[in-house]
């Protein structure tokens, strides 16, 4: 690690000197000498995220390390496995892709009563490092979100909110991200589509369950953003393959790309699902009228939902179909809830999230993933210009390889692909539509497994996958489906928030208890 260590030290010194922001070492678990079972692995394979790349041979090797995590009065002893496992096609048995994964398993637990949860981010093309190092793993990056004064690169700390007390955790990278790569004659691009990606994830889960004798373990899926699209497809495919899923957690869901007005040519789609998120953002900045207290926020947002559904939605449709202008009373109501002046509402009645991000707070640009993050200046509206994302990305990029090498004993000559360019050539078509609607997939999973339970996590301050859009998408399932929605003050990655994460962890633990009937 000497080569990597020198420039890092220099950089941290420079960072301290230039911007007075501290850096804290995250390497080493400080737990003393590792137990004898520990097996480091230096992987000689060079992995590629290129569309046309593939491995000549499947890779099925991993490091094994043992760890201890003290949470208050209790201590968790766990094993971390970091490396590759190859998904094989169900009928032919041919190798499809070697998935990079990190599994955390509690030592001494009985597999039959011990759930296993598969985590993945979205993109598509994103590796799972965000959930892995940000959410409910045993170690997490202390980002301090939504504050911007946390030392960077963020330090890696023990995670008091780890889900490891409830479930074994498997963080897995999509093909062409992290260190996951297709096996010839496939290429990474073979799996860059809604259906092919869902199927190869199914085959990974099937392989993981078989290889680790976890057939009796209840299985859960935890996806974020595009990862929720994947979860809907994957849940249906797993049920169909006879691999029952006990629970699905949708973190910041986008089940139907067609219903999110910022993802479609906006003339076709009212931004109704965003209006309550604009209200939540205005409330955070004290720009709504009234400014609700924390206790009054849910009621305030109920009123914002009603305004969006009953008044805004029909008015936008009337404007789209016949050019009818909105009435002044509606413009002033919208203004009171969202803090945007009536004239702005008049100018852009079907108001888009980028417009709000650039115009709500004078002289500032708000985050897309977390509108509570703001930076000076107003750049042209662009989905690429998200301070709540670009301010955290360097730390995740910096820490993941270091963590894998220093704490989990897995080293490779390849750099980890945190975000691949798969999104640019991804085959989004699904069930005959150019843009995926995966609500029918989730419905099919419920049809095959009526005991399936779904938990949805939303951040009020997320302008990427707005909570009201998600609620409307899920309402299509009807009352028969066991779907629970939990919303918090926070962004798209609300698990980064030190106030939201403990609340979400408690709700997560209750969800697992219910899904397991315990």
């Amino acid at each position, binding site marked *: 690690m000497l*080569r990597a260590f*020198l*420039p890092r030290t*220099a*950089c941290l010194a420079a*960072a301290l000197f230039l*911007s*007075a922001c501290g850096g804290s070492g995250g390497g080493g678990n400080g737990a003393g000498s590792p137990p004898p079972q520990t097996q480091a692995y230096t992987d000689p394979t060079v992995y590629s*995220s290129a569309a046309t790349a593939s491995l000549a041979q499947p890779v099925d090797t991993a490091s094994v390390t043992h760890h201890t995590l003290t949470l208050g009065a209790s201590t968790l002893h766990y094993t971390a496995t970091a490396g590759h496992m190859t998904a094989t096609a*169900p*009928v032919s048995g041919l190798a499809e892709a070697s998935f990079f994964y990190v599994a955390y398993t509690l030592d001494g637990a009985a597999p039959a009563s011990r759930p296993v949860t598969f985590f993945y*981010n979205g*993109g598509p*093309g*994103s590796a799972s*490092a965000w959930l892995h190092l940000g959410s409910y793993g045993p170690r997490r990056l202390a980002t301090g979100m939504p504050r*911007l*004064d946390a030392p*960077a690169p963020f330090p890696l700390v023990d995670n008091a909110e780890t889900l490891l007390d409830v479930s074994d955790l498997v963080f897995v990278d999509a093909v062409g991200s992290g260190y996951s790569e297709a096996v010839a004659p496939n290429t990474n691009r073979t799996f860059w589509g809604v259906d092919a990606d869902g199927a190869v994830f199914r085959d990974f889960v099937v392989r993981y369950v078989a290889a680790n004798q976890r057939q009796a373990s209840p299985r859960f899926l935890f996806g974020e*953003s595009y990862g929720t*699209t994947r979860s809907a497809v994957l849940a249906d495919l797993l049920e169909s*393959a*006879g691999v029952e899923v006990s629970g699905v957690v949708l973190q910041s869901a*986008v089940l139907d*790309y*067609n*219903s*999110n007005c910022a*993802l*479609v*040519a906006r003339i*076709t789609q009212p931004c109704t699902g965003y209006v309550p998120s604009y209200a939540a953002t205005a409330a955070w900045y004290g720009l709504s009228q009234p400014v609700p207290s924390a206790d009054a926020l849910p009621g305030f947002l109920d009123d914002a939902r009603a305004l969006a559904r009953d008044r805004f939605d029909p008015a936008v449709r009337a404007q789209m179909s016949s050019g009818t202008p909105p009435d002044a009373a509606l413009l002033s109501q919208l203004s009171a809830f969202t803090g945007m002046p009536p004239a702005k509402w008049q100018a852009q009645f079907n108001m888009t999230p980028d417009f709000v991000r650039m115009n709500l707070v004078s002289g500032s640009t708000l985050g897309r993933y977390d509108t509570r993050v703001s*930076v000076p200046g107003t750049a042209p509206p662009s989905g*690429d210009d*998200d301070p709540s*994302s*670009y*301010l955290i990305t*360097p730390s995740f*990029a*910096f820490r993941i390889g270091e963590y894998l*090498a220093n704490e989990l004993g897995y080293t*490779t000559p390849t*750099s*980890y*692909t945190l*975000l691949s*360019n798969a*999104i640019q050539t991804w085959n989004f078509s699904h069930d005959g*539509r150019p*843009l995926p609607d995966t*609500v*029918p997939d989730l419905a099919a999973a419920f*049809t095959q497994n009526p*005991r399936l339970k779904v938990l949805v996590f939303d951040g009020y301050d997320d302008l*990427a996958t707005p909570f009201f859009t998600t609620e409307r998408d899920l*309402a*299509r399932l*009807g009352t*028969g489906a066991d779907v629970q929605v939990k919303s918090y003050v926070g962004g798209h990655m609300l698990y980064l928030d030190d106030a939201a994460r403990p609340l979400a962890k408690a709700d997560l633990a209750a969800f697992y208890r219910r899904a397991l009937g315990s």
Partner: protein
Amino acid sequence: MAPDPMARALLLAACLALAGSAAAAGTASVEVPMRDPWVPPELAKQARVGAPSSGAELQAEVDRKLRGRFEAAAGPQGLLTRDAARAAGLGFIDRHFEAIDRRHAGRVSYEDYRQFLRSRAATAR
């Protein structure tokens, strides 16, 4: 004075590039900005126009999905044996075959399968 976050991000990015030039391991590559969810602009124009499915229409979509899989695995008569289900990767039907095959015919129709799903949903409630 609070450090300008943009300047900090740029500094950090520069440091990471420096670290990356010295040793690939330990630094991750970022080929595109994080913008999930996002679709290319030409796809955005092809979004569904009109209301999404719900109720009976949504159930019909589910039915088409399940029927499509069943019929692809079944023979021309639309009947599926346990071996054929297994060979097609339809583990769910394989696992529940005896319960689906109420007539003990060794072959099941899509209607048998649908009946089984319905009765299962009824008992779960």
